[in-house]
């Protein structure tokens, strides 16, 4: 990893550059900390990790109830039997979170921008945005899902969809937009006021300053926490099951309740992890890239 500006992580290996002392010390990543300890450190880390995990595993396996726990949670036969249905259920989760994420990105940005418009005339808009985020961050997601999923069709209004999946996704979009709007707002507020002033002095209008100067910087900064919320959203698609939708966790539950064996939930967990871990690593990668860029430009 050779970096412009010599920001390599190994102590002593970097040549001091002017203004270097002004840089904030970077937070070491897991990889950095391993590298810094050298070969001997790596050996010790390996032994220590092996002993730590080994003791936990040995304690679990030798515990008096292990045989029952293994039968109930780690039964290979039950896993193989339930997995195909869970995979087809997981496709429903994937559809739900992909659609919801796209909508959340747009809707949350709208809320955040509304909340950031200055001037007394726009007070009602700011009020709506504040009320919206407060309300939907405060209400349990489950209630929103019930309310929309069973409540809206009960109104019997012409033209209103009755699909459980439709209302489940709408509920997720409403709840997660409230979270993500706050993330966006943090980004917008992190852009120094002088940026807005400079943009205005160049002749850009209020909206143009937001569109071309503030938002590009703001959004870039908040991508990691934004993806973090998406990880949460992906898991919460499982809540839509309360409306009767056969997604992965519901399929696992169907198997579990009919056989009295919890192993099927393990299958569902693995699928969620398979999707979540790449997203988490991608987030790490974005954070690291952003840091490198800021270091490279001295900003």
């Amino acid at each position, binding site marked *: 990893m050779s970096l412009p500006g010599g920001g390599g992580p190994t102590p002593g290996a970097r040549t001091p550059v002017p203004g270097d002392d002004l840089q904030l010390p970077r937070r070491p990543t897991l990889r950095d900390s391993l590298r810094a300890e050298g070969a001997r450190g790596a050996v010790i880390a390996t032994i220590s990790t092996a002993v730590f995990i080994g003791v936990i595993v040995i304690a679990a396996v030798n*515990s*008096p109830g292990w045989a029952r726990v293994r*039968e109930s949670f780690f039964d290979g036969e039950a896993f193989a039997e339930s997995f195909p249905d869970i995979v087809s259920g997981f496709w429903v989760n994937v559809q739900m979170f992909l659609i919801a994420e796209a909508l959340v990105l747009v809707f949350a940005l709208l809320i955040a921008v509304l909340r950031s418009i200055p001037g007394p005339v726009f007070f009602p808009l700011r009020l709506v945005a504040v009320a919206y985020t407060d309300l939907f961050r405060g209400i349990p997601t489950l209630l929103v899902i019930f309310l929309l999923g*069973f409540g809206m*069709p*009960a109104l019997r209004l012409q033209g209103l969809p009755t699909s459980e999946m439709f209302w489940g996704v709408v509920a997720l979009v409403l709840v997660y937009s409230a979270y993500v709007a706050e993330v966006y707002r943090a980004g917008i507020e992190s852009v120094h006021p002088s940026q807005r002033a400079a943009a205005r002095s160049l002749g850009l209008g209020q909206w143009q300053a937001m569109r071309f100067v503030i938002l590009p910087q703001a959004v870039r900064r908040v991508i990691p926490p934004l993806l973090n919320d998406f990880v949460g959203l992906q898991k919460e698609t499982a809540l839509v099951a309360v409306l*009767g939708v056969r997604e992965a966790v519901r399929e696992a*539950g169907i198997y579990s*309740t*009919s056989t009295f064996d919890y192993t099927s939930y393990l299958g569902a967990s693995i699928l969620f992890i398979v999707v979540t871990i790449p997203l988490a690593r991608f987030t790490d990668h974005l954070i690291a890239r952003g840091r490198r860029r800021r270091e490279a430009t001295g900003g």
Partner: protein
Amino acid sequence: MRKLLIAVAVLALTAAACAPEDDEPAANGTGTATGTTSPAADECATENLPTFEEGQLTVATSNPVFPPWFSGKVEGSDWKNPSPQSGEGFESAFTYALAEELGFSEDQVIWVEEPFNKTYAPGDKEYDFSVQEISITPKRAEAVDFSVGYYDANQALIALEGSPAADATSIEDLKSTRLGAQIGTTGLTFIEEAIQPDQEAQVFDDTSAAKAALENGQIDGIVVDLPTAFYISAVEIPNSSVVAQFENVPGIEGEQFGLTFEKGNPLVGCVDQAIEQLKSDGTLDAIQQEWLSDVVDVPVLG
């Protein structure tokens, strides 16, 4: 290096501290009666029964409970309407009759909450048995011990009047309908195995959610056990009707509800004996007559 050893030792201790302690096998009582072997008479004398709390019968059920299995309200109960302590409703009345047969008075019956999906969790149970319309299947019996059956359950279809399922006269007619059921119920198995509708069944956490979807017209019909079907169509969703009951369908033949016990609970033998007694002296029939008497005159499909 010494520092390393100490650190590893500390980590190991931390990990070990998380391990469960050896638990004493629950060997109060004689501990010789296991499974369904018929125990000697004095083993089933009330004072010798290896119950969870000495001198008490601790019974678990889910919260909320539903008519006609439970009905009637008791002030101060953790259950809102209905409360299992009332002695009203089939399972409540049956539990008190069973307690009496085992030699417990009404106030020695203690009700505790236990969600259905926890009844089969491994490990010690904080009660003697759970009563919540659980169907006995061989696969489930690998995880829990069942009593002998106390009710022969048929599945039934409820549909909203005017929906395509309401006019069904054969299982074939139901293939193109949208059906739903509660998770973990034989109703769901029945839909998937016997009806095999073109559209996958919707699966709900409880009958309340299934009822909501039915009322909204999001599904055409739900499959539940017959007594529940009666209650729903008569009281809860008046514009619905019990279209049919199903019996003699391969796979769900001879379905019975049983009490569930922790695997290896020595109490099972004595409880089985008491249930058989309630069957032979007509008590169970009388309770069924009282609380589930509507269960006749429904066309059988199958």
